[in-house]
């Protein structure tokens, strides 16, 4: 700091920013800002290709930089923090960020898909559904290219969420991720009232959960005297900040853990905080559902793993029993409710809740095997689920307009469209955890971690829940392949290059991670250490 000698000092410790390590986030952020400017200055007719191009480039660049950063981490070193300890850059974070960037890229393909000049989004969201004005906008071919900057900001939040190294940064990431998603949920072209209802529900419940998170963070601050994860961890080990010398700060910490957990469990959709998922997944435009079901879930679990393993790692004895109960509830309740679902998007939503329960068993394991298992599961599940939603976008009602989610009317789909139904079958088998698919390796990884950690009863609940979920996955296959096509069956629109590509990527990832998962598993934290050892955490100002 040779300049500091003869210049006025603004702060005592000016943060040293490692721009390279921040570059993935800044790229996505910059692209988002640029995209907003495009909306203002580029003529409407030319916006779409420009927006798609910028968004895709930004996500690709972010992925490439994440890979380079992971490659440049010195052997034996976990990682570091940047921006005065606000963000962690370690192997765990980089793996999750890379996964999120790829999943967002794949979802972007789906978002950009357009048929007869129409995409999945409302022509003009501000018009009243069913009004003359709306009709006029549809006829004029209006479109919301604002979708792309919104997606970029949401992805920025997703990339930040698992990387945050203090509660305030994490809260900001949470909001940056959520706010655009609330909006995007309400933009469906068809069944707009339904979509808007989903958006309002998601917003209200999401706002509540954010408030819980913030309250929790405040409690923890009261206990530890800091929001920084490393300092909280030290405080937890020491029994509280200096003012709690008699150990009487415990209630504050427990309240804090509980409230923060509510906020995070809401985002991952664990029972009893799962009620938003079916409504939102069903009402949102399907490409956005795909983004939420993959990217958001990875980000939320990344943050959850980080919070429980790093700042609260020292008080595992307190939170583990609670997560046990949540995991059991999630696996059992969601599986049972899912059995009676008839709409494919609602079914996939409940399925996502059950999968969240499986991943929670790995969190409960509290080991680095658990961490690695959860990370692999997230990556495997993400690609499969995007592929599944891509298939859903293609199955429409007879007139070819609206998606047909009613599973009972999918009879004979496998006879008429073997390739499409075959791809969906593969995804469903992966969800059910049948060997030779990625879902099985993921399930094995999390269950193995749980058994190693002595949580065998939890695994028994898990396999029984799997057996129940298998029923409804297999039932879809039954309807598609074993029943004869009906006269009023669905129309399958021809997959465009983008949607076809998404399905192909989903199939490839599902098979590859199922048959040859070694290379991806090698990227995960090594087993045998404390999970926190795989995560960088440094006190504020040392980054």
């Amino acid at each position, binding site marked *: 700091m040779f300049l500091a000698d003869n210049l006025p000092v603004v702060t005592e410790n000016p943060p040293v920013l490692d721009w390279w390590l921040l570059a993935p986030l800044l790229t996505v952020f910059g692209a988002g800002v640029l995209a907003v400017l495009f909306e203002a200055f580029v003529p409407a007719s030319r916006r779409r290709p420009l927006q798609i191009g910028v968004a895709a480039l930004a996500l690709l660049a972010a992925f490439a930089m994440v890979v380079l950063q992971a490659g440049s981490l010195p052997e034996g070193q976990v990682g570091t923090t940047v921006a005065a300890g606000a963000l962690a850059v370690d192997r765990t974070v980089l793996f999750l960020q890379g996964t999120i960037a790829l999943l967002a890229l794949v979802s972007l393909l789906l978002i950009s898909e357009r048929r007869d000049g129409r995409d999945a989004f409302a022509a003009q969201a501000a018009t009243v559904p069913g009004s003359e004005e709306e009709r006029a906008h549809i006829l004029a071919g209006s479109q919301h290219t604002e979708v792309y900057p919104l997606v970029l900001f949401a992805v920025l939040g997703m990339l930040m969420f698992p990387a945050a190294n203090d509660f305030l940064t994490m809260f900001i990431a949470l909001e940056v991720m959520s706010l655009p998603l609330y909006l995007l949920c309400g933009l469906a072209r068809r069944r707009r009232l339904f979509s808007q209802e989903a958006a309002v529900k998601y917003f209200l419940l999401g706002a509540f959960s954010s408030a819980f998170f913030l309250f929790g963070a405040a409690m923890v601050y009261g206990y530890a005297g800091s929001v920084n994860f490393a300092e909280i961890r030290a405080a937890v080990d020491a029994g509280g900040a200096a003012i709690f010398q008699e150990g009487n700060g415990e209630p504050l910490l427990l309240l804090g853990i509980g409230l923060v957990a509510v906020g995070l469990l809401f985002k991952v959709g664990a029972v009893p905080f799962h009620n938003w998922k079916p409504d939102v997944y069903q009402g949102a435009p399907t490409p956005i559902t795909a983004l939420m079901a993959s990217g958001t879930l990875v980000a939320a679990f990344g943050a959850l793993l980080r919070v429980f393993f790093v700042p609260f790692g020292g008080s595992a004895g307190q939170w583990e029993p609670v997560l046990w109960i949540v995991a059991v509830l999630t696996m059992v309740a969601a599986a049972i409710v899912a059995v009676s679902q008839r709409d494919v998007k609602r079914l996939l939503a409940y399925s996502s809740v059950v999968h969240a329960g499986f991943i929670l068993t790995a969190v409960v394991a509290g080991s680095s095997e658990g961490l*690695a298992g959860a990370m692999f599961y997230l990556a495997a599940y993400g690609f499969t689920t995007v592929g599944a939603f891509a298939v859903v976008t293609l199955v429409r009602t007879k007139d070819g307009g609206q998606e047909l989610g009613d599973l009972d009317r999918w009879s004979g789909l496998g*006879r008429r469209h073997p390739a499409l139904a075959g791809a969906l079958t593969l995804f469903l*088998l992966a969800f*059910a955890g*049948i*060997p*030779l698919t990625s879902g*099985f*390796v993921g*399930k*094995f*990884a999390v*269950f*193995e971690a749980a*058994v*190693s950690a002595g949580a*065998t009863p939890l*695994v*028994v609940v898990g*396999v*029984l829940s*799997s*057996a129940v979920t*298998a*029923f409804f996955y*297999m*039932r879809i*296959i*039954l309807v598609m*392949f*074993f*029943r004869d096509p009906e006269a009023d069956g669905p129309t399958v629109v021809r997959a465009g290059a983008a949607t076809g590509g998404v399905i192909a990527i989903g199939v490839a990832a599902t098979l590859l991670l199922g048959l040859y*998962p*070694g290379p991806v*598993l*090698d990227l*995960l934290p090594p*087993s045998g250490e404390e999970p926190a050892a795989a995560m960088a955490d440094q006190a504020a100002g040392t980054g």
Partner: protein
Amino acid sequence: MIPWLTIAIALPAVGAVLVWALPRVKAPDTVSETAASASAGGGTATAVRTKAPAATGGPASAENAKRITLGFSLATLAVLVAMALRFDTSDAGSLQFTEVHEWIPRFGIHYAVGVDGLALALVLMSAVLVPLVVLAAWREHDDREDGGRGYFALVLALEAMMIGVFAATDVFLFYVFFEAMLIPVYFMIGRYGRGNERSAAALKFLLYSLAGGLVMLVSVIGVAVYGGTFLWADLVGGGSALAALDPSTARWLFLGFFIAFAIKAPMWPVHTWLPQAAGASRPGTAVLLVGVLDKVGTYGMLRYCIELFPSAVSWFVWPVVGLSLVSIIYGAILAIGQSDMMRLVAYTSVSHFGFITLGIFALNQQGQAGAALYMVNHGFATGALFLLVGFLVARRGSALIEDFGGVQNTAPKLAGVFLVTGLAGLGLPGLAPFVSEFLVFLGAYAFSPVPAVVAVVGVVLAALYILWMYQRTMSGPAGEKVAGFKDLSAREAWAVGPLLALILAFGLYPQPLLDVINPAVERTVETAVDASEEGGEE
């Protein structure tokens, strides 16, 4: 060294992909059917490819698909026979033709295959049955839009997994095949089966097996956690980490495996999926389902339950023997009451599997040798019976006993073969199943006289269900129900003939089979007996 087993697993898998990916063409009226090879099939297909998207596989491509399927299944059999000739019988108790390659190093998972005498016998039995099933199913799917190509692709895919599941020597790999096998069968029953109940039957079959498999997954994970490895060879024996396991953990792990195998076997009271599944199956599917898939259950009991957790066995002996006896009697009684022949044969199998599990858990040389021999013989005898019922179904469009009568007047050869096969099923001396049944009785008697006596009742009942079925369908005056019945065609004779020959051959001279099976069984018995003696000393 030639990787025989890998070739035998890969061949049908490749064949399945080929049949499935065969270009879908609408054939012109005249198709030169000179060559049956795959390349010729492809050549014809590209030459006559039409633009019509509606063509989803005409007769020509379906015929080619069948020929390719038959070719691949025969080639697989040839490979396995060549391998069997190199099998060292004097060392049949240890694994031969072993291959070990790392697959998922992080979890210590290997692609590891190898066979001892028992596995070799079962692998060969599977490989013998598949081409015969293909022959028997030749005309079954002609009226389908795809001419049955999908079915034949599934048969080949299933064959690869059947060989894999018997040959796997890594517990994880075994589990992979064990579970993955269900999917082709699910489609074979649900999509290509018979009757209106087929999708419900397929779903029931899948859910039962999957539930069992998932329970087993916990035990598989337990093996890795407590045993430290998935390699079977490192897990067995006194020096392994599993041998030092505390008894209650060993019992739980044993139980996890056992539940899955009992569902598969199928043992009373978790057998209820089988009659429905067999009733809704095409006969060929039923042959593979009952003849091979269910054997995985009894094979697993020997290979995994007993050998991995010998210390837990003594605790389970009496309950399992009890369930076996119930299965024997219950299966036989229900078989007598069936009106559908497919279901009848399925119930006889519940009874037969009771004998097999009884032999296994008698825990002595005769009992287990008999059980192992029974597995092979039952595959041939019941396989033949299912195929013959299938021929009847093909003629009449029904499997109900009341729809037949006096067949021996119109189709004497068919009736004769049916009788011989039926007699094999009831354990007539001179036919293969008799030898195994006799050994099981010896073993059971040596274990304890009461179960042996109860089991004998099963044989009496077997005579009743077989002969009564024969009487109602084959003898008596030929009514109009069976008018115009054709006798066995050449194709049908080729499908069932080899099985009859094997039943006769092994009935008169079972020694070669016993030579390869016995050493493997001796090993299992020793493991179990040693462990129970140790347990007694403590």
